[in-house]
């Protein structure tokens, strides 16, 4: 590994832990530095790749060079979109936005009606009992059917909820709480995976481990010292 790559990795580990200082609950200069560095780098990278990969070299310019005039309106609409960042003429960007919205709506309606509604609904209207799939299939399908009916009854607002409707809505309400719990668990699993994945990136190959643990301790000590001196929030970016 060359020296530049080596130093980049060590700096990346340090800056990552500076980013984690947001968990301390108080603004501090280490976090500000990490946050602004990331924003600047990510923005520069996105613009650069978007330019070279989609608009610039790859499609529009190459297309024009080949004599494909279809790219002319696309380039004009693209340039108009950039006026969004110039308040005096930002109204011009509405042309591109309207064009994009119109197309997206047309495409969306054409297919979403199937993928988001019809296919999803038909997937719930199935035989509850299929002998070859066994009892677990029956339990799963029955749970889905009961959950849908009771939850939908919870969202009927145009009538007074009483009697059997009240029972159904209450069951639906508790099923929703269960579903929220499941979604929270999935979310936590996802976030933990991200965190563990990043930590793994900082811990392997093994030569990174002293730097990772050192960076964690260094950042923690600097943060505590800054906080004790009352400088943490004072030096943080507004």
């Amino acid at each position: 590994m060359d020296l530049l790559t080596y130093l980049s990795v060590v700096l990346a580990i340090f800056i990552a832990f500076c980013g984690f200082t947001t968990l301390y609950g108080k603004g501090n200069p280490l976090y500000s530095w990490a946050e602004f560095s990331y924003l600047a780098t990510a923005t520069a990278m996105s613009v650069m790749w978007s330019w070279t990969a989609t608009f610039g070299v790859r499609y529009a310019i190459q297309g024009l060079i080949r004599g494909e005039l279809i790219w002319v309106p696309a380039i004009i609409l693209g340039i108009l979109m950039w006026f969004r960042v110039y308040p005096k003429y930002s109204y011009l960007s509405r042309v591109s936005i309207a064009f994009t919205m119109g197309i997206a709506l047309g495409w969306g309606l054409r297919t979403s009606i199937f993928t988001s509604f019809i296919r999803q609904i038909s997937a719930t209207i199935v035989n509850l009992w299929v002998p070859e799939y066994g009892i677990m299939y029956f339990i799963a399908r029955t749970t889905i059917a009961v959950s849908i009916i009771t939850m939908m009854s919870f969202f009927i607002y145009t009538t007074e909820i009483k009697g059997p409707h009240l029972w159904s809505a209450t069951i639906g309400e508790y099923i929703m709480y269960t579903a929220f719990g499941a979604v929270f668990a999935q979310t936590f699993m996802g976030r933990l995976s991200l965190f563990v994945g990043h930590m793994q990136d900082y811990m392997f190959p093994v030569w990174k481990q002293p730097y990772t643990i050192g960076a964690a301790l260094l950042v923690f000590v600097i943060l505590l010292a800054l906080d004790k001196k009352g400088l943490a929030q004072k030096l943080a970016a507004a």
Partner: protein
Amino acid sequence: MVEKKVSLLQWMATYDQRWVYLILFLVVLGPMVSPIGMPISVSASTRNWYEKVTALKKGDIVLDSWSTEYSGYMELKPGLLATHRMLINKGVKLFVCLGHPEGFAVANVVFEEELKSYMDKHNYKYGVDYIILGYVFPNVASTIAAVTNFQDAVKTDWKGVSIKGTFLDRIKTGADITMIVDFTTGAGNPGLIDHIVLRFGTPMIQNPIGVSLPGALANLDAKLLQAVLASARGGAELEYLIREPGPGLIMMDAFSLGHYMVIIFIIIGNIGYFGWTKRERARERTTIR
């Protein structure tokens, strides 16, 4: 001034949440320094994914969609690497389409570092067996254009080199794609399902991050997806199934301990809530002021 003694129940309800973060750091870092090797089980969902990928034949053309930025890649890495090992091993032809500008960095890491020795071992070559088309699927419009008339819409790879004369000559429309393998952080391209699966009936399998899993499971139930690999956990299971230990199995110790830790904190928080917070509120309500 005499400091009021804090009871255990009060501590459970009011402890500083920063302890949770600190302990989580230790719980994650600890097993990486000193692995435990906790057992994992393989779910039916991962087995289904394994079977779908195994059913592919040498020479089949797979649309390899990565709608992930670098941070999301950390979660998708186990599934992505394990699946690609299977695909490379089978000699499947891949064309990689990115749905996020940062995908370039991910593709570089995967093909130039992570899978390089594996590809060399299987004589899997760029331009012959796989092609990276780059950021060609940023939205629905580009997807429709590509699958309606592929040869007109896509002419070069990610470095601007012509794709003429490669296996991609066989792709005219979405119907010529054998399967779509999608790795997504959820901000993925709906065009894959809406305009390839629905229109051409092309089978699609998806490895989403944990947050997007409920939506993917609904699509699996509606038969819009053929298989779902669940987050990094699914990737670890796949590594186990193909007998190729990788980042997934390494991270599972920290993963399991992290979950145990949160369960314990949820229990502590609930005991604190019912034992102290709720009673404290009741006391406040009944106090004569």
